[in-house]
């Protein structure tokens, strides 16, 4: 199958854009796992709630949806803190399976709660920049995607600054590296749990806004597929490794496109898991993962 270089580059660009959503989700999952050693399988539902919050605010105010990022992110931050406090903290330290079961309950709760509040119909909005494009050489790149990629980079840089340059970031990293030692040195680890979960939810909320802005349709069940991909990326990239999440995200984009071409579109989801299983059979902690937890 002959594909010229231009086409290939174009497909890579689409992958990069789709990767933004995955990377934001995967970074959130990683942050939460790093600090709490907990996996929230309902992470995709936070993406969905982020999308609906943006949509609701847009319908109410009619503001430029990019500006609504400023409103959606704090809402999801608080929501995440509430979910951590009410649902995850009580089971923290009990059997690990409990967290998985709890997440399943949350998936049912959030998906159908959203269907009750916002209805189960598909929704979509159009960005004010929908018809604008940037021309680079022979490419016509839609302006929205350029903005989305820039916003994602901005968020990731901001997160790195938060983690590396602030006292809060230091405390988060300390909790993530050694919980007991962090506790002994006076860090309130329970508060760190809440903040980490809140930040993870906020990242998912940002991804939700970007999803809506790019003109993609959404419904209460939209979160599960991107979330599953994000988890696969996290496992592939290694738990707790943020560079791993980014490389994993890009790798997945390529693997999915390759599978769509060679095996057919039906394999797009399955290929994620085949890669995942192969990796785990060879290296049970993922490609970049630290040994043990």
């Amino acid at each position, binding site marked *: 199958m002959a594909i010229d270089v231009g086409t290939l580059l174009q497909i890579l660009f689409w992958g990069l854009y789709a990767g933004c959503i995955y990377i934001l989700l995967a970074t959130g999952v990683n942050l939460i796992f790093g600090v709490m050693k907990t996996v929230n399988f309902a992470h995709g539902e936070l993406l969905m709630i982020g999308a609906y919050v943006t949509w609701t605010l847009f319908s109410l105010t009619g503001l430029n949806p990019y500006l609504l990022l400023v409103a959606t992110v704090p809402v999801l931050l608080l929501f995440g803190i509430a979910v951590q406090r009410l649902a995850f903290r009580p089971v923290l330290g009990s059997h690990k399976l409990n967290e998985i079961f709890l997440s399943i309950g949350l998936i049912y709760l959030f998906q159908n709660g959203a269907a009750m509040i916002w209805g189960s119909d598909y929704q979509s909005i159009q960005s004010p920049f929908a018809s604008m494009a940037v021309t680079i050489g022979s490419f016509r790149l839609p302006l929205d995607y350029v903005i989305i990629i820039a916003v994602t980079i901005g968020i990731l840089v901001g997160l790195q600054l938060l983690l590396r340059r602030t006292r809060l970031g230091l405390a988060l990293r300390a909790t993530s590296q050694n919980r007991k030692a962090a506790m002994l040195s006076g860090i309130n680890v329970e508060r760190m749990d809440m903040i980490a979960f809140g930040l993870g939810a906020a990242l998912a909320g940002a991804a939700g806004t970007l999803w809506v802005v790019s003109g993609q349709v959404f419904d209460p069940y939209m979160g599960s597929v991107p979330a599953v991909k994000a988890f696969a990326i996290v496992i592939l990239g290694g738990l707790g490794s943020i560079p791993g999440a980014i490389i994993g995200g890009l790798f997945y984009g390529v693997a999915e496109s390759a599978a769509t071409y060679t095996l057919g579109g039906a394999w797009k989801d399955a290929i994620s898991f085949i890669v995942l299983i192969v990796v785990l059979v060879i290296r*049970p902690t993922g490609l970049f993962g630290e040994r043990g937890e």
Partner: protein
Amino acid sequence: MDLDRFRPYLTWIALAVALLVPAFASGSLYLLTTASIALVFMIYSEAWNFLAASGQGSLGHAAFFGLGAYASALTASRFGLPPVLTVLFGGLFAAGIGLLIGLTCVRLKEWFLAMVTFGFAIIIQTLMVSQFAGISGGWDGTAAPALVPSSVPFAPYVQYYLILAVLIGVLLAFRALLRGRIGLAFAAIRENEVEARASGIDPVRYRLFAFGLSACVAGIAGALEIHQFGYVTPEVFGTDISFWPIIYSISGGLGTLAGPLVGTVAVTVLWEGLRGIGLTYARFVIVGLLLILTVIFLPNGLVSLPGRIRAWRRRREGEGD
């Protein structure tokens, strides 16, 4: 009111109720159908719960449920064998694939395992609709002969008792296994794998055994369901089919034999009752909340409820003194 006095008879009471359901159901095929489907899901949930007893939580048991369904439906319709026999073949086939999948899974922990099992359900569904579409009928699915042909008098009742018999067989087998050496080994592995290894238990062998047997029973359940429906489509590999046994087992009582039974009855009654009062999405919300509340406040499920209430009353009385 001391529940303890009834405890020894509970099994017999439950059995009597199960045997009498068709009598209550006389004239209501709906009740009988609901009860038959509930029995199938009890078998399926027991299978999931048996795997959980070995410390492994699967998020993709629909893979085995569906494989059993397809294997049985295809052998029954292609070779004209009676479904009563092919159901067993469905179980064996699911067990074979289950052992292969188990080989990749037994060394994985918690959520790695969860993701991989979840993934296998999707991979198998994809195979069924693409590479194996010629055999499986692809998305169109394939017909499955009735478990009990309608020419048999009182077919729906015969079918109910047949499924009940399978359930009782599965329960007896699991009880024998969990009370014996295997149950002890499972508990040891679940609590502390390093210690278990030190005392000479090979966790991989026991985990693999749990995987194979659980897959086998789940396959039988899947086969029983689709012979009841008369048709099988790739939707049997769906996420909801993977999640129901978890909901039933957790709400009833993880790791206990009675748990999945109690959970299935409680959730089914809740589910159908909420339908009766016209709720739609709210039903899922309530089931989700029930699951969350159970995990947080009643980690041993509804079966531990009487004990918890007794303990709570004793504490109250103690305070009163």
